[in-house]
Every structure is written in structure tokens, then in C-alpha cells.
């Protein structure tokens, strides 16, 4: 079947116009969300069971991570603008906003590595305490998602530079956007639970 061919969906379709790719990404997001829930809930359980728990602000650099949170919010905005651009057939806008998102994700990872470097220099290792274990495992798991997202964006950006997307063909960009926004959404919770509470 031609990719640009219009497919008429039944009116009572429970998923409306959502493609199988998009449904697949939603399914992945649900499963991945449960993985993050498992980590955060385990961290909370360990915290409740612990006799003492360090104050995050005394060990972690909260202002720097708050800036990182702001950065991730900005990349969510640029990602949704990339989709908005291609939905209007603006290929230059798509490439511009995807590039901004990729750079933002890269800076986020750079700041996270900088934070890890300073924490490790101060003797705060993965096995220092239960608290450090919870911190590194949760933030590193999220960091891996950001890294995957940056690699994923680079593939879509390459396809965009080949002119593969248009106002009638933007499904891949939408699916990429769902993943990236999920990474942002999870960070909001990780930041609150690990850094602020």
C-alpha cells in the first residue's frame, strides 16, 4: 500500500486515527512508566524503612538540577513545535526544532555527567549508602532514556534532512515526540522525589 494513501477508519474505532506505531509507543510508555514507578516506589519504601535519610539539598546541587529541569521543559516545547511545524508542511522548522531539542538533551546529559563527576569526587559513590544507590540508579536510568532520546532524534533528523516528512506524513515525528515528552514527564517526578522531598 502506498504510504500516502488515505485509509478510512471506521467511525467506532476505539483508537480513532492513532496508527499502530503510535499505539505501540503508548504501550511502551505504559510499561516504561511502570519501570520508573518500581524504582521510585522501591526508593520510597527504603526511605520509610530507614532510620535516617540525608537531606538532598546538603549533598545534591538543587539549583543546577532545577536549571536542568527547566532545560528539559524547553526541549519538550521545541519538540512539540517540531511536530507543529511539519504538520503545516514546514520542513525547515521541523529540522530547526529537532536540532534545538537534540542540543537541549545533550546539554542535559552534560550537566548530569558534571553533577556525577563532582559527587564522585566528593566520595559519593553508588555503594556509599542506600540513599546514594537510590539516587544513582534512578537518575542514571532516566539519563539512559535521555541518551536514547537524543540518538532517536538524530535518526529522525537525518530522515527529515532527506525530505521524508511532509504535512501528510508526520507519524514518525509524533511517535518520537511521545517518547521525548514521556522522558520530560518522568523527570518532573524524579526531580521532585529525589531532589526536593
Amino acid at each position, binding site marked *: 500500500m502506498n504510504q500516502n494513501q488515505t485509509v478510512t477508519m471506521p467511525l467506532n474505532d476505539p483508537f480513532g486515527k492513532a496508527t499502530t506505531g503510535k*499505539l505501540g509507543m503508548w504501550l511502551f510508555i505504559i510499561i516504561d512508566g*511502570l519501570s520508573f514507578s518500581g524504582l521510585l516506589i522501591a526508593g520510597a519504601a527504603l526511605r520509610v524503612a530507614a532510620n535516617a535519610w540525608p537531606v538532598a*539539598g546538603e549533598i545534591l546541587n538543587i539549583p543546577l538540577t532545577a536549571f536542568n529541569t527547566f532545560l528539559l521543559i524547553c526541549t519538550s516545547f521545541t519538540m512539540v513545535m517540531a511536530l507543529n511545524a511539519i504538520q503545516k508542511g514546514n520542513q525547515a522548522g521541523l529540522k530547526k526544532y529537532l536540532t534545538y531539542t537534540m542540543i537541549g538533551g545533550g546539554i542535559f546529559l552534560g550537566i548530569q555527567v558534571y553533577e556525577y563527576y563532582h559527587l564522585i569526587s566528593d566520595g559519593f559513590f553508588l555503594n556509599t549508602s*542506600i540513599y546514594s544507590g537510590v539516587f544513582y540508579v534512578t537518575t542514571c536510568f532516566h539519563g539512559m532514556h535521555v541518551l536514547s532520546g537524543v540518538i532517536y532524534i538524530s535518526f529522525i533528523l537525518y530522515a527529515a534532512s532527506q525530505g521524508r516528512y511532509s504535512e501528510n506524513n508526520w507519524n514518525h515525528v509524533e511517535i518520537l515526540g511521545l517518547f521525548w515528552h514521556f522522558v520530560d514527564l518522568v523527570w518532573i517526578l524524579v526531580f521532585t522525589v529525589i531532589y*526536593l522531598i
Partner: protein
Amino acid sequence: MNDYKSVYIKNAIWLTILTVLEVGIAFIDIFRTGQIVLLMTFAITKMMMVALIYMHVQHETKTLKWILFIPIPAGLLFTFALMYDIPFRWVV
């Protein structure tokens, strides 16, 4: 195709404002339980804003919305099960 650019910009601004407020709340010296409730409320609000506006969940069908809702009670169930278990099994 509708242009939602202004909605996306407003959403980003509100997310930033809520993040600044969150950091402020974390640093002020108030009743601990109240602080946790406030911080979690802010976090859930921000997550809803990302899901509804940036992920366009508000435009999805009812079936998909229900499917996306399923992990929330599952997560709460895991939490309560684990918390209930703590006094009986773990000493850290």
C-alpha cells in the same frame, strides 16, 4: 490544522513557574507533611500539563485515555503493598 503555538508557549511558561515555586517550597521551613503534599501536587499538575498539552492526550479517544490511566491505580497498589510490608520484613 490548528496552530497551538501560543498554548504550547503558555504551557512552557507555567511549567517553569511551577518548577521555580517547587524549588522555593523545598527550601522554606514549613510543616514537613504539608511540604510533601504541596510538592507532589505541583509535580502531578506539571505531569498532567505535559501529558494533556504536549502529548495531546486531551485529543485522544476515551478508550486510549482509559488504557493510559490503568498504570496509576496499579502503581498505587504496589506502593501500598510495599509500604504495608515494611514493618514486618525490613530493617535498614
